[in-house]
């Protein structure tokens, strides 16, 4: 639009961006430092803290657990959430209104309360093994994201296409897989990415649900930070950021980032 923006406002925006991105650059610098403690600007140049991630078995172990939780939790959430989102949109009139409210509850209830409550009911009372309890927590955490994002893309899905397929002789179940699913693909992928990132970064739920031998990367990071203050944390952070950039590039290439921005 033709309206000019005040220079002070632009300056302010630049400062906000410096504020947002500066710390990440500093982490990056610190990860390359040769010292055993954190400094910026880095003194010396070394990749040994990256090496260290691999050397410390706890990181290897927790990265695996985190990936398991993210993939499985998101997978289960998709399996459970997509039909729910479909039902919400397709049978809007016949399903009660409170159902969609129920589906966003996990967002409304503080994560830390979810974690605490699950610890008590699932781990302690029901005696579910730690690994499974953690998986339950992560699944629960991401279900609402799946339902919301998939719903958004179903909301713009033209159900007459489904009816067209049925009228051409395709049974309803097959129609879902051959017609509906391919057309909400981008929504499903967006839901997957969002859930995956949410799960892999989660602290509050995992905090309560981790146990002996089973911990997630963020929890391990917190523990490590309590014990060491060396640049390993910075290296892990950098690796995570690079992973994120990779994911974003893939997303951008395949779908366009508008999806994440939603």
């Amino acid at each position, binding site marked *: 639009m033709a309206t000019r*923006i005040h220079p002070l406002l632009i300056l302010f925006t630049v400062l*906000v961006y410096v504020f947002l991105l500066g710390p990440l650059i*500093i982490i990056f610098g610190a990860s390359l430092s040769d010292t055993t403690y954190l400094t910026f600007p880095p003194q010396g140049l070394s990749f040994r803290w990256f090496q260290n991630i691999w050397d410390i078995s706890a990181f290897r172990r927790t990265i695996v657990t985190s990936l398991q939780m993210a993939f499985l939790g998101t997978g289960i959430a998709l399996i459970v959430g997509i039909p729910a989102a479909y039902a919400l949109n397709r049978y809007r009139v016949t399903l009660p209104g409170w159902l969609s409210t129920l589906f966003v509850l996990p967002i409304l209830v*503080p994560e*830390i*309360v979810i974690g605490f*409550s699950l610890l008590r009911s699932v781990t302690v009372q029901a005696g579910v093994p730690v690994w499974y309890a953690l998986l339950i927590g992560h699944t629960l955490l991401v279900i609402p994201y799946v339902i919301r994002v998939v719903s958004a893309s179903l909301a713009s899905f033209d159900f007459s296409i489904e009816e067209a397929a049925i009228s051409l002789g395709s049974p309803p179940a097959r129609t879902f897989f051959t017609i509906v699913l391919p057309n909400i693909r981008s929504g499903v992928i967006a839901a997957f990415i969002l859930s995956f990132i949410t799960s892999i970064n989660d602290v509050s739920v995992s905090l309560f649900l981790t146990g002996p031998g089973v911990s997630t990367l963020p929890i391990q990071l917190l523990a490590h930070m309590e014990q060491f203050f060396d640049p390993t944390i910075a290296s*892990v952070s950098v690796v995570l*950021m690079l992973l994120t950039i990779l994911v974003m590039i893939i997303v951008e290439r395949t779908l366009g980032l508008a999806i994440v921005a939603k």
Partner: protein
Amino acid sequence: MKRLAGWMLASPATLAITFLLVIPVAITVGLSFGSPGQGDWGIVQPYADFFASGFRRNVLWRTFTVAGWVTVISLAAGLATAYVVARCPPWMKSTLIVLAVFPLLTGVVVRSFAWLVLLGREGMVNQVLQATGLTDGPVAMLYTQGAVIVAMVYIFVPLMVLVLVGVLENIPEDLLQASSSLGAGPVAGFFQITLPLAVPGLIVGAVLVFTASFTSYATPHLLGGTRQMMMGTFLQQRALVAFDWPGAAVVAAIMLAVIVATVLVMTRVARRLNPMAT
């Protein structure tokens, strides 16, 4: 028949959320109440105890203050930034949005950690302060309320920018043209048209940020330490260190109540400020 199909598809999610979320949380809330005969206050005795303790009141109040400041600062910074971003040419807009999204995708732990590095006695901020002669010696910034607020603002501004860019872009350009054709300059247009119309979005953003900062754990844990205990860290201490489950349940229930109240009040306020939002 249709009805049945809908229910069948929705049932796994419904059951999962009911049994794994609603019921456990309900049990937690139940646990937070005492037995009828207990103390002067009967079943709400644990709450009476909570509010009788200066420390606990203080934790609650501090959490309110921090969440409040974080919300206000994030709103202001987010709104100004979103306003500029929304007005940029398309290519620049998408770049700026990507840059704002990026920190959002790195976890809370990593982002809090960054401030641990920055705010330390020998961190960047202190180095800059001393180099520029603003202070003589290093200033203790870690483990203060300010540190928690700064780190949380850092975490929530990207979210706010994203929400608000969407909101500002949804305000039809027509309306601003209409207002300028009626004689309103850019500033008048902003305050009389853009801002009121952005209110629903501002509320959404504010609720999001307030609830998330009110319940956060990692940031106050890392940057506030034990001296800046907030509801999240306090809940963790009660549950996992002191092993005081009823006490933890009270904290959890209060958190839940505050969140629900906030959401209700803010939506009410939004409706007030912007009568067409329903």
